[in-house]
């Protein structure tokens, strides 16, 4: 059994934007798809609850769900080339929703769709109405998928890596467009991405996911200024920045995300964490707050605390490979990290057994 998402909770207010950040395999896509009930197939087990304007979405019948999609919640996917139908003109792909959900006539639907295409800044929307997806650039295609998602005026928009496949200039425009539409329509938005740069100035709050769990959750400014979880810190430190001088040594995160079929005991990040201590390998830290009630994190040795500093120095003295990777940017293979973690976990388990 793969636990792709494990005990995630969050609240989103009307008109607000939350960023969900994590590496591939962290469960961020599965989370947003589960909320929208888009995880197809009988092998997926979902538990918990999703309350949307007071109703539990997970309890709705498939038929009720159909009238929720598009009207209440909609999604923009990563790759517009696979999310759009290649053999249907884009106009029809937009009108399909308004005709079904809003019951508009053919000509009304066309007028609405052209307006929508204009609102997502597609030039010559009237002519483009007849175009096929392959006739458009990547950015234009993503604009079409945004128009489809917005067609019936949803209250929440999920954007799952909406700009990952696009060039940086186009990414900038699409993110601006999403922000603009969110403001105009007073929608809530869930922005899923692996890029901390994308969420930095564009979200109200951020949840950082690792191995299916939220490891830190705070308002965007708090998260960047006072991050408490070592993974958030590592993620930010490992990315190159245009504000740094060239050849700045990067603090790499050693190792790889855990295998979710056999996840490590204790904290899931412990094998890669530069601060990991014995406790981290055996006991899983709960999501807690410290002072600021809106800032949750799950770590025994949170960044910025004296215990954290002590743990770092201890690990540095012991020449733990993942600590050296951060301190010196040393290149460490996954197998080394896994061997060290296995040894530490075994030692911790043995110590626990002795007591």
């Amino acid at each position, binding site marked *: 059994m793969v636990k792709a998402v494990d005990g995630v909770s969050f609240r989103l207010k009307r008109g607000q934007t939350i960023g969900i950040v994590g590496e591939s395999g962290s469960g961020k896509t599965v989370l947003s798809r589960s909320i929208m009930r888009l995880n197809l197939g009988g092998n997926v087990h979902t538990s918990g609850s999703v309350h949307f304007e007071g109703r539990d979405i997970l309890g709705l019948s498939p038929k009720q769900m159909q009238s929720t999609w598009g009207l209440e919640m909609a999604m923009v996917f990563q790759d517009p080339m696979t999310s759009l139908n290649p053999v249907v003109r884009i106009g029809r792909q937009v009108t399909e929703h308004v005709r079904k959900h809003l019951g508009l006539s053919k000509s009304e639907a066309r007028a609405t769709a052209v307006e929508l295409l204009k609102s997502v800044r597609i030039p010559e929307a009237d002519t483009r109405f007849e175009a096929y997806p392959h006739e458009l650039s990547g950015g234009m295609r993503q604009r079409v998928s945004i128009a489809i998602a917005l067609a019936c005026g949803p209250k929440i928009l999920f954007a799952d890596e909406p700009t990952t496949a696009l060039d940086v200039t186009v990414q900038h425009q699409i993110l601006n467009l999403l922000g603009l539409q969110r403001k105009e329509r007073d929608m809530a938005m869930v922005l899923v991405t692996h890029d901390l740069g994308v969420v930095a100035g564009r979200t109200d709050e951020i949840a950082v996911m690792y191995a299916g769990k939220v490891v830190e959750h705070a308002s965007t400014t708090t998260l960047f200024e006072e991050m408490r979880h070592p993974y958030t810190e590592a993620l930010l430190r490992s990315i190159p920045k*245009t504000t740094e001088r060239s050849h700045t040594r990067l603090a790499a995160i050693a190792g790889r995300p855990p295998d979710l079929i056999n996840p490590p005991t204790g904290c899931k990040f412990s094998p890669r964490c530069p601060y990991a201590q014995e406790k981290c390998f055996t006991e899983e830290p709960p999501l807690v707050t410290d002072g600021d009630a809106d800032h949750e994190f799950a770590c025994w040795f949170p960044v910025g605390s004296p215990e954290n500093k002590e743990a770092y120095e201890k690990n540095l003295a012991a020449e733990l490979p993942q600590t050296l990777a951060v301190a010196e940017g040393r290149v460490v293979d996954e197998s080394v990290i896994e061997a060290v973690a296995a040894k530490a976990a075994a030692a911790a388990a043995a110590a626990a057994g002795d007591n």
Partner: protein
Amino acid sequence: MAGTGKAHLRDGGDTILRVEDLVVEFPAPGGQKVHAVSGISLDVAEGETLGLVGESGCGKSTTAKAMIQLPPPTSGTIDFKGRSLTNIKGEELRQTRTDLQMIFQDPISSLNPRRKVGDVVAEPLNVWGPHDIDEQEARVNAMLEAVGIDAAVARDKHAHEFSGGQCQRISIARALVLEPQVIICDEPVSALDVSVQAQILNLLEDLKERYNLTLVFIAHDLAVVKNISDRVAVMYLGKLCEVAESNTMFANPAHPYTSLLVGSSPIPDPNVEIDESMVEETELPSPLNPPSGCRFRTRCDRASELCERVEPTMRKVTDDHYVACHFPLVDVEDD
């Protein structure tokens, strides 16, 4: 520029690779031509990392591939250590290529899934020697260790048993096993997760120093390019816009296009104000029929009638900063 000119080329004796007036065109239906690269001149000094940036379709990969004659360019010259690569053919070219190696974007598909990693890395040695098995094994082991892979375990495994980051390190080992002088890295970190990306960038810096390598590094991520490069060349629609020392370029972009790229690049700091005015997409002109004069003029807010008529040439801003624009954002020296 997007223009031509060679003012930015250096005369130094340590130039390892020099590209002049490179043109690459591909045939298109209806007798048309795709103008992928149209008259680019570049030089790379020994031990230097040259970063090539630009949006997709700007010809950055085509330029890099033309450097190793894959395929040979339509016109222009490429000198490697004073020898012209464009005039040599067959066996001679084959031998020269051992000095120029390449790393590709997708680490998993660039390794043969049916062969053991040890054999993949040893393949260049099978072609060029040494053919002695023990000697080969020693070289392969040394190379795998150099990229941080445990050779004893990895040799007999297949590519699918490794993560993306490990596969990329294995293909770096394969590129290095013939002890090349130049490595062309075509978007080597774009397919990797951010945490793995840092490892590969650090590794390339280490190897560059250890084996005295010269790198040509292609990427679309400006932060990545800035981090690894000594010198950066910005390309737009088959032309060069700006060439400068890496820190200079980001501190003082001279070309409107460079400035657009830098301004669009996401910065992981919530206190940095985002310019939210840009919503509209400016359509990229077709490389089948590029605009006259400056190719960037259709998207440029400084463009005038001069830009339509006359193609800008490279002009000097400072000693290691050149721009091809009629109306650059910083002062330039007059010719």
